Every structure is written in structure tokens, then in C-alpha cells.
């Protein structure tokens, strides 16, 4: 176990290094002089020279990288050009909003995807199976921004049941918070539910054909016990770790969902930054997302080993 951890951590270091190089390089994709882009409307040569010195743009690129990564490692992601706030502070403000949304989306995805996958596998070839498969196809093919718009039209404009936009913190008023978040969380969770359904179905089908399930049936156990106690427990282990890995999909989805529902989260932060040409924020958001993803990947791997005794060595 310790050996595995050491190996896994050793793999993360170069990956994080390349992530940082990739994100740093983004800045150099900008057409023309980055100092001019950062200066925006300002054309005063003194101001441009000051920006160039401040961001070490007058230094060779590898030196610029060293300055940048030193800052990042000490928690300095730069300053937002628009808000004049440290990028890390902005991220810390917005991330909890998206995490609440992502948490609700994952719960919705599990509540829909796993039962649908189990029913689909247990009732293979029946109308239930076809229905669940159709749901999965619908889930992975529906653009979440369109689904969001259609839900707003139905539940906010036509029926008037839910607010069309906005965000209320859970700590402030939990009812209003859930009412405001339920539609965006469903939009986000829908595609993941479809993916989970497909994985659960194939894992369950594999397990249902295994010898120990056949033995459990031969012992005369009820079908319910066989499925719930024997098959499901083994089939769901990899699925739960897969759920953690879907965070990338959630964060990508959050960009558009937060835009549609005007939620002041992490996704909206990157979109606003893109339009304000606030490049330090764009870099900070991508770096944070990648770091969260890599960390979750590691946790999922460890969790998988912990719950699967055969992998412990």
C-alpha cells in the first residue's frame, strides 16, 4: 500500500509540472505582445514598460516561468485585472458555490444513474432495459445549456414553480437555496447519471453471470438478497470511484450551467474572465481545476484499493 502511494505520488509531480507549463504557455498564445494585451486601452509606453517589468515579460521565457511558478507555489496566482483582487481570493470566494452545485448534481446522478443501471441489468431485454438505455442516450446527447434553457421555460416561465436564476447560500435559507439550485443541479447531474447508468449496467451484468452469484442463487436465496447483498456490493465499488472522477465533467458543465442560471460560481468566473481578458484569472481557474482533478484521481485510486482487498499488497 505504501509502495503504491509512493509510486502514485511520484507520478503526480511530473504531471503537475506539465500542467503548470501548459497553463503558463497559454499566455504566450496571445497574438502580439502580452504586455500590450494586459494594458488594454492604455497606450502610455511608461505603463506598458511597468507591466513588462512587473510580470517579468522582459525576461527570457524559462525565467518568466520560474517567477510565475514560484508565485503559484507560494499561493500568489497573480491579481485580477478587473477586480484588482488576488486571483486565489476570487477562486476561494467562488469555489464553494460550484462545490454545492456539484455536490447536489452528484447526488442526483447517483440517485438516478445507479438504480436505472441495476434495473436495466436485472431486467435485461425488457422494456425497463430499453427505457434505461434510451435515458442514457438522451443524457449523453443533450447539450446541458439547452436542457437548462428548456427547464427554465417549463418550470420558471410556464409553471412558475422555481426561480429562473440566482443563488442563495445553503446557510442563509436552505429552502430557497435548494429551490434555486435544483434545476442547475439536475442539468449538471443528468449527463453523469447517464454515464453512471451505463457503467452500472455493464458491471451488474458481469457480476450477475459470475459463479458466486450462481452459488448464492443455488443456495436458495431470494432474488432480492442475491441482487442487493451479493451482486450490487461488488458491482458498485468501481462505480463509486468513477463518480469521483466525473468531477471534470461537472466542472466543465458548471461553466455553461452557471452562465444560464446566473450563478456566481467558478464556471461564471472563468467566462467573465475570458470576456474581460483577465488572463491571470483564466490561468488560475484552469490550474485549480487540474489540481483538484489530479487530487481526486489519487483519492479515488486509494479508495479503490481500500475497498478492494485483492489489490492490497
Amino acid at each position, binding site marked *: 500500500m505504501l509502495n503504491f502511494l509512493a509510486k502514485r505520488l511520484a507520478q503526480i509531480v*511530473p504531471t503537475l509540472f506539465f500542467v503548470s507549463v501548459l497553463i503558463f504557455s497559454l499566455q504566450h498564445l496571445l497574438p502580439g505582445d502580452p504586455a500590450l494585451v494586459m494594458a488594454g486601452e492604455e497606450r502610455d509606453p511608461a505603463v506598458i514598460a511597468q507591466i513588462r517589468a512587473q510580470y517579468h515579460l522582459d525576461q527570457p521565457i524559462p525565467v518568466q516561468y520560474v517567477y510565475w511558478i514560484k508565485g503559484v507555489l507560494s499561493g500568489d496566482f497573480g491579481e485580477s485585472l478587473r477586480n484588482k483582487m488576488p486571483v486565489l481570493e476570487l477562486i476561494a470566494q467562488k469555489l464553494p458555490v460550484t462545490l454545492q452545485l456539484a455536490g447536489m448534481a452528484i447526488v442526483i446522478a447517483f440517485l438516478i444513474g445507479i438504480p436505472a443501471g441495476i434495473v436495466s441489468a436485472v431486467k435485461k431485454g425488457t422494456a425497463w432495459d430499453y427505457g434505461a438505455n434510451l435515458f442514457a442516450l438522451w443524457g449523453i*446527447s*443533450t447539450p446541458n*445549456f439547452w436542457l437548462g434553457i428548456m427547464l*427554465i421555460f417549463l418550470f420558471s416561465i410556464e409553471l412558475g414553480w422555481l426561480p429562473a436564476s440566482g443563488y442563495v447560500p445553503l446557510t442563509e435559507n436552505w429552502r430557497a437555496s435548494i429551490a434555486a439550485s435544483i434545476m442547475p443541479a439536475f442539468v449538471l447531474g443528468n449527463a453523469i447519471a447517464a454515464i453512471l447508468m451505463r457503467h452500472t449496467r455493464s458491471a451488474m451484468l458481469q457480476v450477475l453471470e459470475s459463479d458466486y452469484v450462481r452459488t448464492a442463487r443455488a443456495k436458495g436465496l431470494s432474488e432480492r438478497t442475491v441482487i442487493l447483498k451479493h451482486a450490487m456490493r461488488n458491482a458498485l465499488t468501481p462505480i463509486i470511484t468513477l463518480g469521483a472522477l466525473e468531477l471534470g465533467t461537472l466542472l466543465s458543465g458548471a*461553466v455553461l450551467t452557471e452562465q444560464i442560471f446566473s450563478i456566481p460560481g467558478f464556471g461564471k468566473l472563468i467566462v467573465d474572465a475570458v470576456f474581460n481578458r483577465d488572463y491571470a484569472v483564466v490561468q488560475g481557474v484552469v490550474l485549480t481545476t487540474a489540481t483538484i*482533478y489530479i487530487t481526486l484521481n489519487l483519492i479515488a485510486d486509494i479508495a479503490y484499493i481500500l475497498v478492494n482487498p485483492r489489490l492490497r499488497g
Partner: protein
Amino acid sequence: MTDATLTTAASLAVAETLESPARRAWRRLIRRKGAVIGLAVIAIFILLAVFAPLIVPYDPIATSWSLVRKAPSAQHWFGTDELGRDVLARVVFGARASLLAGVISVGIALAIGVPLGLVAGYRGGFIDALISRITDAMLACPFLILAIALAAFLGPSLGNAMIAIGVSATPIFIRLTRGQVMSVKVEDYVEAARAMGNPRWRIALVHILPNILPALLVQATLSIAAAIIAEAALSFLGLGQQPPAPSWGSMLNAAQRFLTSAPWMAVWPGLAIFLVVLSFNLVGDGLRDALDPKAR
């Protein structure tokens, strides 16, 4: 079982063995209802995109102040938008941007990803470790966030959106190609080609690449679906096709502002994205089953 039945079964088996792999895959593909429906819908959208000017009587960018936000009617089947433009014309012409973006982005991802995956899988060692770590780094950045960041830095346009989506989709193809090459390169026929003194590039291109094509084809089809959604997403955010040129994503963005007074503006472009993406997913799933060696 009679002798005649046995003979027919045997001759069918022989015919199947003699059939070329591509023909066999095609025959299996068209046996799947979902894949056939998907292929038909894709064909219809391709025809619509190619012959758009002959199909719709309206100019997709011609505005008319007297026709602003008119509900669907006999003249304008899908209604008109906030500038009085025909929504049907814009949906039909919008198919061009979406399909082009899907195919070109995946083409870019294949053009970069497959050679890198081949080199990493075949050479191994330091080059493999380097390419794999860069791939891991790219995969750590969620697809759409990376595409948005790239599109933002490259500047908003359909061309740049295609590059951004293509580059963001590349690591999937590197990883897939590398994995496939590693399992194929230990096969006897590759060993034989090596023993005959074939140069590395020839073994990679002539003996390995054709054998990993089925897996790449399945992934490419599914990636086109993802790329079409990504292009629509970037256009929705204003980072893809620029107005007044029609694109399904930017149409949805405009529609969002007029949801109360003109909901039809949101229905049709969204439905078009859904149908095309669903069709590519159906074909991708069908191809996966048709090309699965275990199904033979």
C-alpha cells in the same frame, strides 16, 4: 439438422471468413437499428448543410424589422428571431458550422494524437514517459475548460474554436493509440515483420496502424459528437462562430434572452444539436459493437 442446412451454414461461415474486415463491419453495422437511424439522420444533416441555399428560400442573415420574433407560421415554419431572420434558414445553415467543427476538430485531434500515440507506444522509454506525462497533464484539465481557455487566448472565431476543441481532444487519441499499439506490438505478425528487417516506421504504419484503426474509428465518431457540443458551447459563450453567421450555439444564446416572448427560438437549434449528437453517439455505439472482435 439436415445436410442441406449444414452445407448452407458452412458456406455462410466460409463467406464470412473470406469477406474483407471493412465489409464485414459494415454488414454488422447496418444490422443495428440505432446505427442505421443515426447514419440516416447524419446523412440528412450533411445534405441540408451542403444544399442549404437550395433548400431554404430565406437568407439566414437577412434581417427584417417587420418580422421580429414572429411565431411559427406557414411562411416561417420555425418562426423568426429577434432581428426578423428566418429560424429554419439559420438552423439549416447552422448545420455547416456544427458539422465542420465536429469533423475538423476531430481531424486535428487525430492528426496530432495518433502519431504521438504511435511513437509513445512503439518506442517506449523516455519518449513514452514524456508524452504520457504531457497527456496526463492535458487530461487533468477538463475538456471544455481547456477548450474555453485556449479559445480565449487564441481569440474568438470558428477557426480558433475548432483548433481549441481539436487540441483539447488530442490527449484522448494519444492515450488510446498508445494503449492499442502496446497491445498490438507484441503480436506474432509484428514480431515477424520485425524479424524480416522492416524499419520501425514501416512496422508502425503498415503493420500496426491498420490494426488499431477500428478502435480509433469508434473513438473518432464519439468524439465528433462531443466536439459538436463543444462548438455549440463555445459559440453559445461567444467564442466560436461570430454573428451574424448562423450557428446553433449562438442562436441558443440569443434565444435565452427572449424565452418569454419567443420560446421557439430556443427549441429548434437545441433540437438540431441533440439530433446530430444523438446520431453520432448511436453510430459510435453501433460501430463499437460491429467492430468488437468478441462479437465475431
